């Protein structure tokens, strides 16, 4: 099958690669770049486990063809923590019990981080809208909500 050359910036690192045009960003991240922190489940945009940021926007990487990501900036869960320091949303998930089995966690955290990057003080409705596409079956969302409120509050106090 024919391959197309693409250039991706993933977590600040440039990658030059050739990919088949049908392959998704999710497959390329997990299989070619071994970035398995982005999780694979429904393959049809229903669960949000595969959420990554493309040019700062949260997208389902299972529905995003890798060739479409050519020349774009990708941020995955592996790139969220900087210099050994966790992102405030990651810290809050640990502290407030936002993690159980953890399989939805990377997608959830990336969705939340993408929202907070543009809306540091989201309303309850904005928060719900941003996260309603991430399915969690363990936590009932209660401690995730608690963690996010704490992270938002900490961000407010820091500024």
């Amino acid at each position, binding site marked *: 099958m024919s391959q197309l050359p693409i250039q991706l910036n993933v977590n600040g690192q440039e990658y030059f690669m050739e990919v088949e045009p049908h392959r998704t960003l999710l497959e390329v991240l997990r299989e070619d770049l071994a970035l398995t922190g982005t999780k694979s489940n429904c393959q049809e945009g229903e669960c949000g486990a595969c959420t990554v940021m493309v040019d700062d926007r949260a997208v389902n990487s299972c529905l995003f063809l890798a060739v479409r990501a050519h020349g774009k900036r990708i941020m995955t869960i592996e790139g969220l923590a900087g210099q050994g320091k966790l992102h405030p949303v990651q810290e809050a998930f640990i502290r407030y019990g936002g993690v*159980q089995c953890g399989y939805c966690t990377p997608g959830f955290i990336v969705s939340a981080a993408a929202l907070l990057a543009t809306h540091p003080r989201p309303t309850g409705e904005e928060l719900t809208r941003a996260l309603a596409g991430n399915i969690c*079956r363990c936590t009932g969302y209660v401690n995730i909500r608690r963690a996010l409120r704490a992270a938002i509050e900490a961000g407010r106090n820091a500024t």
Partner: protein
Amino acid sequence: MNEQRIVGQAMPRLDARAKVTGEYVYGMDFSMPGMLHGKVLRSPHPHARLVDMDTRRAEALPGVRAIITGRDLPGVMMPGTVWDQPPLARDRVRYAGEPVAIVAATRPEIAEEAARLIAVKYEPLPIITDAEAAMQPGALLIHEDWASYKAEDGLVRKGNVCCHSTLHKGDVPQGFAEADTIFEDSFSTESVHQAHVEPRVAIGVVDSAGQVTVYSNTQLPYWIRTNVAHVMGVPESDVRIVPTGIGGGFGSKLYPQIEPFVALLARKAGRPVRIVTPIEEELAAGLPRHPCRLYIKTGVKKDGTIVARQACMILDTGAYAGSGPELASVGCLVLAGPYRIPHVQIDVYAVHTNKTNFGAYRGPSGPQANFALESHMDIIAEKLGLDALGFRLGNIVEEGDEAANGQILRGVGLRECLEKAAAAIEWGKPAGPNHGKGLACGWWTTTGGLSMCRARLDVGGKIIITLGTQEIGTGAIMGGVPQVVAEMMSVGLDDVRLVVADTASGLWDFGSQGSRTLFNVGRAAQFACADLIRQIKDLAEKILEVPADDLELRDGAVVGKGSPSERISLADLAKLDTKGDLHGRGQSYPDPAAYDPSRMTSCLYPAFHYPSFHCHAAEVEVDPGTGEVTVVRYAAAHDIGHAVNPTLIEGQIHGGVAQGIGMALMEEIVYRDGHVLNNNWTDYKLPTFADVPDVQAIIVQHPVEGGPFGVKGLGESPVIEPPATLANAVYHAAGARLTSLPITGEKILRASKEREKHT
């Protein structure tokens, strides 16, 4: 009085950091060099004779390395309570989605294409999809040879009924004769899926010497080992199951589905083989919750005292028995309820239909039976003009009471649960227009079974705990057990390392399931720590010249009781342990709960070990125009014995309630003529961030002797009460009594219209 330093604290779980950074390794993240990709070919028919199968075109496809059909496994049946299921269908398929062949190829899309190229000739047969119809005399038999199957001793089986369990106490006709009023209701529930976010996945490797290794995200590695060994015809000790990280299971990952397949394919292909079950197959052919019909009849005195209960529950168990026989007895116990009733007769049937074999979803049988029982309790209270809370309080079991099966109840915190949950939603205060309040209570088990553990004093005074079952997400293994160990060893949580061993270790475990994990694995860890402490003190005695009995562990050291200057750190002791002697062993096998066997027939799960008690209370709003239900507030009080980690406990309660809200209001696997119509997460509705309120978890602590620090099971119970709680609240909000799940807006509007017609 409370001298615990670690147990009782809301500490971060050991796996939290790896999970928020994406570093935690799940089953889905495994791959092997040279790995092939497997595909399961499934029957498109719910019932058919399998006349012929031609694999030649598939075999000719470049990249195909192995194809196996049911005819390659003559006579092999999967182990179980009833041995009724071949690993791959041989001459008959009994549900749409039943595996008929498996393929391994170099790429997933080649395996899929090969599966499509297998020509299967079916001869469709009539189907039965209604469990009650399947019970009728003369009904089409789904297993014509049912009587010849190997089965567990004492199971009452006949035709399509693979188990009829009964609980009988007192004299039920006499009880109804004594009653002033008799109430009768019927209910139905649909199947719902565990919807774990990580798919079911397994990788099989077989070497030339015949050693079989299977990597699986299973909750129950040793049962997978039994099944893989049996299907492959090799000794169990030649099979090694490596339990990987699990992205949610909720009972779905208890029973083998793809593990024998990857091992068979790997042996034939001579290469590792991986199979993932995609969502569309998982929803159609996984192991979801049993759909049920329930009939319940209660005799009550004028003052609200219950004198007699009769109930019948029909579990649609699907094409194969699976967990149905065991869950029939669980249904008996839930329907008898946590109530004092002198006369009780419960009959539960597990019945075959042409659907997938339903499995053990969190609290199996629980929410179905509780929905019927606790809706019925509210109907009775309403008709008698009694307060629903007061009616229950007048009939519930108390400390030292006998349950219907004759077991004596200890650590009964039910009254406190009822009172606290009700108070949390301001029970006595009237709700506003279109609002309504409801509650429901229940009891559940802490499953027993064997767990084994090793505790080792390692370099630097660290404690290494090795055990045989995986963290499933609850935090029992990566939160609860390490806290119990740190407490026992008087070290910091940072000083505990936890290793989940594969089955080659021989550390047998009954698995991460059944609300048993912290109780049993934690108990095994306690015993291992006690053994290690004895060894540590014996060594310290020689060094400190203080009798071992006068030594204690404190803050990472062994010190003299009352003479803290006599001291050696665990790190220094570890240095002296050059021969590697300091390791403790522990195994937990709690005595099964005593009950009265004369009251139970054909019951594989006849008692609730170390039972837990709970009450949920909710306020809902029903939109009068659309019937849409909003859960305004929700409180769940759980008597869990002793709270080892409050954050983890609350997390179990929140998550269980959310799943219960799903089952109550939106989730349903929709069958038509034996086919699943909604096998994707767009059409199968799951609760999202927008649907679940800030559930208030109320921790009630009536400890029991047996488990670590008095704990009882918690994992399953929070999913049991939400359907009844919400049905009762909806009744008060909309005036519509819904007796079938899920309670959708459409059903509420229809029931309201019916009611208007009749008034």
